[in-house]
């Protein structure tokens, strides 16, 4: 095999048994790698009905075919399985440094089942893989654990770790690489916690990789790296991070405010935008392995109630989720709250979304001091969020922790009083910080049909809406107008296919903006020897989307679950999108017919599954 190593680590924590296995080569060509390959593995080998936090649950880390390459954006990998937050298919993606090291150590992925009988750590050193005690780290924050693991083993050992939130099974707990890069969404930190797995550590002796056509690859790599480095978007993000144009997003109504109740807040724009972060708090840029863009931030807040030492800083989602979404325009607070979530091990998007819901509920009187254990949940009160709310959630402490630790949907169901109507989610996953009413109506569609729930990185739809995509080779020549439904279903089909490719190849969407369709095909062929043409590549993308849909069908989801809460679809009350309706039903119907999804069951038709070589899969659902 080339690119991929063909080897998987199977770890059973109950028995302490570790085996190296190989996956059938056809799996790679059919499901690409990353979250696609993980879905196929889960489908074939996982216990689909196991509770996500039970010992039987299967947890999969999977690289894509490009892990380890010195290519900007190729540093990512996926974690996947059944999400404890949503109860359906979940996957999450992370950049940083873990994926390349795992590849160099000789593995494409790690499949973990069972539960260790005491807090443990998985240590991978090429062929030597063992489970060791993590008793000394249990209960500690991710920052301390990461630092101490590196002190013990070596700075070049790459780490994945959970925090107290994961240990306490908070349903949106995350996993951090190097204490900075996140597997943020869908609660896989809790899955690790439920297995008594505090950390995974990997170190490879060499950086050997087998490339199918080394000379051609070298030429392509140089070309792509140069394009990626020189692109305007890359330079902008290098300078001011992913929130570089947050202020612009306020004017277009893309930035959500106070639990999606408002689409314009003039002063907040300048206060939270990337340029302001650079001016006030940035100490240096950070990067994922081999990436020339370096969009990551390292910040220091010198003084004030939100002072924080030099360390990982917030990206766009965190700045908004712990900023305007909860009614705050305090950038220092967003830095501190983001750092706290990092250390406690909490997904900032779900945390912000859950807290925003709670603030609205408190404002309306749907929850009282009785429900919150005496904690006032007021818009913009970041001191309470940082000092009380986030720690309570992470430790599941008190009434507040118990109420909010399972996410906004569970909390709303518990409270009742129709408070579910002002949650902002799809399939139980809190929506990201792009309001479809301003960011683009196509986003409403792609949020709703994304297998893991409301997600803006499952597809490049966001980039399509801003005019950054042009793929004439596959017939995508649309100039999309954000606040309309025109061409959105057609765009969504391409978006879903390409997005599945991106998330299975595990390439960063900021870097792969510069990669054309023929170049994508070339990469797969000269690195991993997939022998694809354009058509086969796009089909594999769609196949990945299909298998995740089938997984959700097993979990009882239907077409009706491809939905967004009314909060995000009712016409905006202010700002650019004010009064504009989203033609959600129309777009969804058209999308289903274009991509052959049954309008009731929400799964691909038997005919199309057979056409995609998925007749075995079809038998399980039709």
């Amino acid at each position: 095999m080339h690119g991929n190593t063909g080897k998987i680590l199977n770890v059973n924590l109950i028995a302490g048994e570790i085996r190296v296995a190989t996956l059938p080569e056809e799996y790679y060509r059919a499901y690409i790698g990353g979250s696609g390959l993980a879905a196929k593995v889960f489908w074939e080998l996982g216990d689909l009905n196991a509770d996500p936090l039970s010992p039987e649950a299967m947890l999969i880390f999977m690289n894509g075919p490009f892990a380890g390459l010195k290519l900007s954006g190729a540093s990512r990998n996926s974690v996947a399985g059944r999400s404890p937050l949503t109860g359906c298919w979940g996957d999450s993606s992370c950049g940083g440094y873990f994926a390349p090291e795992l590849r160099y150590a000789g593995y494409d992925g790690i499949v973990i089942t069972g539960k260790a009988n005491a807090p443990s750590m998985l240590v991978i050193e090429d062929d030597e893989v063992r489970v060791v005690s993590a008793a000394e780290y249990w209960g500690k924050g991710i920052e301390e654990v990461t630092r101490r693991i590196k002190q013990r083993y070596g700075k070049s050992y790459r780490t994945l770790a959970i925090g107290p939130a994961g240990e306490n099974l908070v349903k949106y707990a995350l996993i951090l690489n190097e204490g900075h890069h996140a597997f943020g969404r869908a609660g896989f930190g809790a899955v690790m916690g439920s297995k008594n797995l505090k950390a995974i550590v990997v170190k490879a002796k060499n950086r050997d990789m087998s490339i199918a056509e080394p000379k051609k690859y070298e030429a392509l790599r140089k070309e792509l790296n140069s394009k990626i480095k020189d692109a305007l978007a890359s330079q902008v993000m290098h300078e001011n991070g992913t929130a570089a144009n947050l202020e612009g997003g306020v004017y277009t109504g893309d930035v959500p405010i106070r639990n999606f109740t408002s689409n314009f807040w003039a002063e907040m724009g300048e206060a939270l935008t990337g340029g302001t972060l650079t001016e006030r708090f940035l100490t240096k840029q950070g990067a994922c392995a081999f990436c020339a863009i370096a969009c990551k931030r390292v910040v220091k807040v010198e003084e004030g109630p939100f002072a924080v030492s030099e360390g990982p800083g917030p990206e766009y989602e965190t700045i908004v989720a712990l900023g305007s979404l909860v009614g705050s325009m305090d950038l220092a607070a967003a830095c501190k709250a983001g750092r706290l979530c990092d250390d406690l091990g909490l997904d900032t998007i779900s945390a912000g979304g859950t807290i925003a819901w709670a603030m609205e509920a408190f404002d309306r009187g749907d929850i009282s001091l009785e429900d919150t254990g005496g904690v006032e949940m007021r818009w913009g009160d970041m001191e309470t969020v940082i000092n009380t709310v986030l720690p309570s959630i992470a430790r599941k402490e008190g009434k507040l922790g118990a109420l909010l630790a399972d996410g906004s949907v569970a909390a709303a169901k518990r409270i009742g009083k129709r408070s579910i109507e002002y949650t902002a989610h799809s399939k139980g996953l809190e929506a990201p910080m792009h309001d479809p009413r301003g960011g683009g109506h196509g986003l409403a569609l792609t949020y709703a049909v994304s297998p893991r729930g409301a997600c803006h990185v499952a597809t490049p739809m966001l980039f399509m809406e801003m005019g950054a995509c042009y793929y004439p080779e596959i017939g995508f020549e649309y100039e999309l107008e954000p606040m309309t439904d025109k061409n959105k279903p057609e765009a969504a089909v391409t978006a879903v296919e390409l997005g599945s490719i991106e998330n299975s190849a595990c390439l960063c969407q900021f870097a792969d903006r510069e990669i054309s369709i023929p170049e994508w095909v070339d990469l797969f062929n000269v690195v991993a020897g997939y022998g694809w043409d354009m058509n086969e590549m796009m089909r594999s993308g769609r196949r990945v989307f299909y298998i995740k849909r089938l997984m959700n069908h097993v979990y009882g989801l239907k077409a009706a679950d491809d939905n967004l809460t009314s909060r995000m679809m009712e016409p905006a009350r202010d700002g650019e999108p004010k009064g504009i309706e989203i033609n959600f039903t129309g777009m969804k119907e058209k999308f289903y017919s274009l991509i052959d999804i049954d309008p009731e069951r929400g799964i691909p038709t038997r005919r199309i599954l057979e056409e995609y070589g998925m007749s075995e899969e079809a038998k399980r659902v039709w």
Partner: protein
Amino acid sequence: MKIRIIPIGLIKRFADEREIEVEAGLTSRKLIADLGIPAELKMVSFVNGTRIDLDNELRDGDEVRLVTLVTGG
């Protein structure tokens, strides 16, 4: 005629907020090109707080906010 240009977000790297003297009949589209803002950026123009078509003519005393749709994840 005199207009005030107010660059928003990442447009600040192409222009400063200031008053400028321009020819009558200038449109936002031409203004954007004249300022050297790369054509690849999808632009929106707000005049005196309201979004207008890029090909509408600007008028004396207008406050023009120039916004691009580009955003991070």
